[in-house]
């Protein structure tokens, strides 16, 4: 304090090189101790890689769109690992490309729901009062309708397409996220460090983004993973009802529901996408559970 303002020597600032041991890293390490969660994570990473590099593995046009009626409905074999569908397309290729569609529907819809719902929830939670009331009553309206029904109505109104599906699913995510973020914000809002931030003159926006939201991430991250799972499964359900994505886009739910016609004689057609959906949801759930445990300070 009493030292004069001479330039700092490198030695004096030596402490800067001490490595940060962030909580995220710690959480991650703790997560890694949970075998199930790691399995889920590996599977998801694998899937995401598949989705990203799908084009390198299978050419979309020739394997997923072009028909090959001569080879229709072939059981899995060395040539077609997952068999072929009723149009003679390789199911493996379609499943691989489908992972891209399904995952992006899940991720985009949830991301949208998270951003919009998160902002609404953060606003409601942070400011409280009338704003909170209006936002929450709106959420009540959306939540009063069972999510699936809401999605059906929206897709039905907008027409079945991937974009509309994403919109419908995203909209049905918004109120849930708004609520979760709101309650997370409420639980953090009255923490002393938020008050401390105000005391040292931190402005509202920064308070929300630097002090409140990062500390609400726990329940939000967990909910996000579970929500993605729910969205993928809802996509499949909407596809089943004929409100899913369009042919020839190989969305898993669509694969599963078109495969259901053949479930008796070509069971693999429905089973393989079904198992893919199941595994993905399972992996997301495992990861979500693992995250919940890893983020729980009591289990430290």
């Amino acid at each position, binding site marked *: 304090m009493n030292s004069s303002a001479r330039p700092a020597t490198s030695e004096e600032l030596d402490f800067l090189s001490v490595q940060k041991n962030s909580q995220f890293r710690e959480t991650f390490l703790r997560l890694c101790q949970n075998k199930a969660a790691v399995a889920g994570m590996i599977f998801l990473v694998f899937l995401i890689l598949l989705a990203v590099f799908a084009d390198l593995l299978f050419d979309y046009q020739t394997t997923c769109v072009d028909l090959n009626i001569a080879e229709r409905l072939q059981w899995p074999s060395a040539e077609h690992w997952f068999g072929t569908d009723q149009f003679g397309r390789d199911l493996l290729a379609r499943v691989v490309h489908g992972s891209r569609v399904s995952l992006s529907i899940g991720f985009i819809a949830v991301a949208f729901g998270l951003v919009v719902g998160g902002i609404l929830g953060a606003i409601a939670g942070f400011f409280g009062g009338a704003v909170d009331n209006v936002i929450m009553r709106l959420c009540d309206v959306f939540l009063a309708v069972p999510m699936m029904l809401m999605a059906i109505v929206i897709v039905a109104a907008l027409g079945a397409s991937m974009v509309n599906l994403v919109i419908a699913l995203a909209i049905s995510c918004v109120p849930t996220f708004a609520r979760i973020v709101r309650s997370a914000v409420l639980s953090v809002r009255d923490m002393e460090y938020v008050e401390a931030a105000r005391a040292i003159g931190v402005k509202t926006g920064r308070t929300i983004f*630097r002090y409140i939201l990062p500390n609400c991430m726990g329940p939000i991250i967990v909910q996000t993973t579970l929500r993605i799972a729910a969205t993928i499964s809802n996509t499949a359900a909407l596809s089943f009802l004929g409100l899913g994505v369009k042919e020839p886009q190989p969305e898993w739910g669509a694969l599963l529901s078109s495969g259901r016609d053949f479930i008796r004689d070509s069971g693999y057609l429905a089973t393989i996408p079904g198992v893919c959906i199941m595994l993905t949801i399972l992996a997301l759930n495992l990861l979500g559970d693992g995250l919940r445990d890893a983020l729980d300070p009591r289990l430290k």
Partner: protein
Amino acid sequence: MSEPLLRVEHLKKYFKSARGMVHAVDDVSFTLEAGKTLGVVGESGCGKSTLGRTIIRLQEPTSGSVFFDGKDVSKLNRQGLWEQRRQMQMIFQDPFSSLNPRMTISQAIEEPLALYKICPDRTSRQKRVAELMDTVGLARRLYNTYPHELDGGRRQRIGIARALALNPRFIVCDEPVSALDVSIQAQILNLMQDLQKEFHLTYMFITHDLSVVYHISDEIMVMYLGQVIEKAPAEKLFANPVHPYTQALLSAIPVPSLHDRRERVLMTGELTSPIDPPAECRFSNRCRFATDHCREAEPQLLEVEPGHFVSCFLCER
């Protein structure tokens, strides 16, 4: 007497609640000289924290005014308040919840420096942070650690360093040591006293630990249900408590010694609800000396002898 650093006048802070108005701070007035420490004691829920927060306007007062250095803080606009915050800081009770778990120590201390553009560039900021860490006795190797890796004493030091970063003149200390073990508590108390001397700080020291408040304060203010019931220099108060509540409070301190034991004045009952209290002496239902008069009107805070203020009908008469 010259203008005191802090003058609080008829400060009120009410909260709306489902069952009525919570009179958390109800018509509090006092003054505080620069460089002094005012201790505030009282039972849990009597409005100590609210008073502290309202003074530095972390909460908007319901009515009343706070003059800091002659300036009415309660009338400042946003920008003015923001400027004013450099002068008035706060140290919080819970060292475990008063630090953002996602910010390293250096980030936490650097935050006010950056916000108020106190240091022109990063390096000088880092240097200043390191200096502050030295000042409060934090080893520099902790520069990049996160609060959860540290014990309560160290965390409280971070809170102090953060408050000091802006070179304030007045600090509200809301129970800064009550979550700490005695040995650590003593370290922090010493530190705070040293800092007070070094930087000529003025403290408002909130606590419910009477031995601590006696040790650190020049003046002590006893609160009960949102009101000040007694205020006097520390020695005077401990030597001659006037208000029955103060008497009971002081006698309740467990003394860690086998010899000079006090006579216990046991109080019955507990703090009543601060929701829409009736116009009577708020302590009357627990008071040994309460008369009908006490239940009919509210006593005023009167100066019974120089510097010793009491709010009780017993001494009014």
